[in-house]
């Protein structure tokens, strides 16, 4: 990247007094770039921002702002360079909103000067951009948290900063204003070359609006990477303890995170191993429920991109992988057979069977016949696309003692009953 480096932590430690919160942090923000900080509560995201303005302490390493060591900048020089939008904006006093925003001109005003024509223009523009012009005459102590948050952004923009530090800039905003403010931040970065360092709690928003994302966790910061590399199933599970489907939102084209379950919510009991025969999303509920109940879940052959395959990845479930829309090949059949051998029970979801996946069912039936507990979800009628082969297998399974379950709850109960025998 050739753009100017506006912000750079180099092997920095930050904290308060003797307490280090984040150590060995190296992080840069270039002109025109939005860098997102994500991570669990208390990991030190805000501390990293607060140390820039001296509200937290830089305990080691260096911080440079536009190439200058931060310690060499006076508060006034820093305020001409860096605008901050804090997490909590309070105004327990009554000045007009326009006056509030005009306070952002302070670093540019000579000692005893009053705001001039240009200052008024900058304030006007900042308020127009943040959609707060209609509030200009309102006293600040009568405004909502969301209005104040946008006014704080306007105030920061009135500083004409080259670097914006945003600490959860949209926490008090409704959906529309949230997107509006973040769109604005993106535009400012793109059109005016402002560098932005923003703390996000919402991973989807972080991915959607950041060029690069750094993860703050376990007392340090990962190198900032493009969202698709920074936010993965593995990082979400490691950092937040949440198993999530991390995919690309088909509409926005950006990384999207759907939480599936918290690791902490998994029942602390060992229930044995269960093989779920799924596909087309029919096994998703089963897999999630059984993982939560403490089962060691595996899955039959799943096509890449299939909803069940995506969930299996998110849950960390072992399964036989086959290419998109491809039928099961001998390799995947061997793999499912092996998973079936190691399973204490098998559950067949209400997935439709065709020639491509009926081998999954055949393996389940063979194991039913050799005594493995098998639960069959729903009926085969209406989802046999194999000219009767699947229905025959279904009948064989029932004959071998496989039990039928009307729904996922019943299936779970039957599995637990079989497991306790």
């Amino acid at each position: 990247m050739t753009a100017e480096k506006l912000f750079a932590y180099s092997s920095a430690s930050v904290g308060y007094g003797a307490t280090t919160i984040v150590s060995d942090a190296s992080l840069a923000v270039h002109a025109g770039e939005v860098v997102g900080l994500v991570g669990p509560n208390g990991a030190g995201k805000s501390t990293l921002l607060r140390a820039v303005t001296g509200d937290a302490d830089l305990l080691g390493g260096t911080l440079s702002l536009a190439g200058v060591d931060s310690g060499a900048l006076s508060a006034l020089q820093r305020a001409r360079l860096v605008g901050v939008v804090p997490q909590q904006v309070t105004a327990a006093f009554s000045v007009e909103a326009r006056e509030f925003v005009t306070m952002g001109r302070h670093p540019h005003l000579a000692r005893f000067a009053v705001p001039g024509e240009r200052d008024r223009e900058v304030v006007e523009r900042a308020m127009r951009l943040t959609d707060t012009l209609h509030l200009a005459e309102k006293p600040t102590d009568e405004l909502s948290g969301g209005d104040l948050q946008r006014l704080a952004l306007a105030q920061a923009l009135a500083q004409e900063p080259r670097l914006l530090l945003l600490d959860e800039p949209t926490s008090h905003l409704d959906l529309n204003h949230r997107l509006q403010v973040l769109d604005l931040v993106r535009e400012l970065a793109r059109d005016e070359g402002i560098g932005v360092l923003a703390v996000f709690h919402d991973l989807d928003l972080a991915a959607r609006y950041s060029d690069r994302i750094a993860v703050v966790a376990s007392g340090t910061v990962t190198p900032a990477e493009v969202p698709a590399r920074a936010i993965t199933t593995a990082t979400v599970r490691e950092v937040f303890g949440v198993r999530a489907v991390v995919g690309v939102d088909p509409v926005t084209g950006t990384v999207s995170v759907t939480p599936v379950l918290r690791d902490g919510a998994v029942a602390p009991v060992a229930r044995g191993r269960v093989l779920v025969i799924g596909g087309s999303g029919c096994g998703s509920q089963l897999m999630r429920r059984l993982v939560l109940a403490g089962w060691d879940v595996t899955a039959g052959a799943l096509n890449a991109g299939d909803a069940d395959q995506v969930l299996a990845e998110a849950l960390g479930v072992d399964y036989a992988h086959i290419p998109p829309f491809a039928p099961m090949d001998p390799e995947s059949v061997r793999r499912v057979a092996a998973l079936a051998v190691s399973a204490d029970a098998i559950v067949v979801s209400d997935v439709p069977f065709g020639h491509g996946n009926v081998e999954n069912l055949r393996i389940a039936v063979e194991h039913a016949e050799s005594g493995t507990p098998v639960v069959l979800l729903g009926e085969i009628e209406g989802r046999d696309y194999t000219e009767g082969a699947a229905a025959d297998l279904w009948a064989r399974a029932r004959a071998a003692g496989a039990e039928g379950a009307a729904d996922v709850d019943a299936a779970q109960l039957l599995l637990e009953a079989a497991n306790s025998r």
Partner: protein
Amino acid sequence: MSRTRRHGSSVVAFTALSLGLVGAMVAGVALGAVSVAPGEVLGALLRAVTGTAGGLSDTLVVGVRLPRVVMAALVGAALAGAGALYQALFRNPLADPYILGVSSGAGLGAMIAFVATAGATVLRFGAVPLAAFAGAMLTMLLVVRLASTRGRLDPTSLLLAGVALSYTLAAVTSFLMVVSREQMSAIVYWMMGGFSQASWPYIGMIAPMFVLGAILPLLSTRELNLMLLGDERAGHLGLSVERFKLLMLASASLMTAAAVAVAGLIGFVGLMVPHMARIVLGPDHRRLLPASLIAGAIVLVLADLVARTIIAPIEIPVGIVTAVLGGPFFIWLLVRGERR
């Protein structure tokens, strides 16, 4: 200059304040045990300026009443200005020189100088006001120190530390008073607060302190407004908060010391006047601070007038008047503010 609609117009307010100050001062000079007609007051002033003063009423006006009124105005402005500053710096509506213990600190400082130099005549050499300033500043720093944990100032602790220290200092002051018997009555009268000792030399002594204390805050009203946002935000917007606070605390302590050195302990003005100004004009220090200074002057000039006329020829301490009038008025303002 824009302003919220709820608050009054600057022009009207400052015209009223200026007229009020002139009116209060003229009344203060004219009224008393012997009344002087307002026209005669102006005549006496004119003759004093042109050096042709002579008559008894001229002596009364220029030598006795005027210094008293001017001193009351200076002390009122100083206390109200200090109160406005403390309230801004600590963002605490209850902060004033009295509650923070600064007045008591200044009082003890003044008292030590008073006793050590054996008498009021030393006032002219400045030992008392300097000691008052030292006492005020030391108390202020101690209170801030006591109320801070890891660089953060807790508003409740600030008031508690101020009140606690105030009592301690008052006890020491009382002790000093008891052990210096021969000056006891002079000290008692000084401590109760009042302007009966007013004279031009005293004014010459505290006027520079007042000006020195007021000038920096008056030139820093934009920075004082930033402090409304809180220390952190003020810092984000380019204010060197710690340095600024120290400068403003020194200014406020200087004004407090100036007031206490010559007029003893007068309560309520520092707390009440800035609030009155804020309710009328809003929190913008570009208007609030000058308005507090002028209003403080008016309030004390009028309070002193009441103190020396209400049961004349007996003079009651002016602190009693400010408390008796200030308390109910303040409560009325609070109730009115809540009803709106």
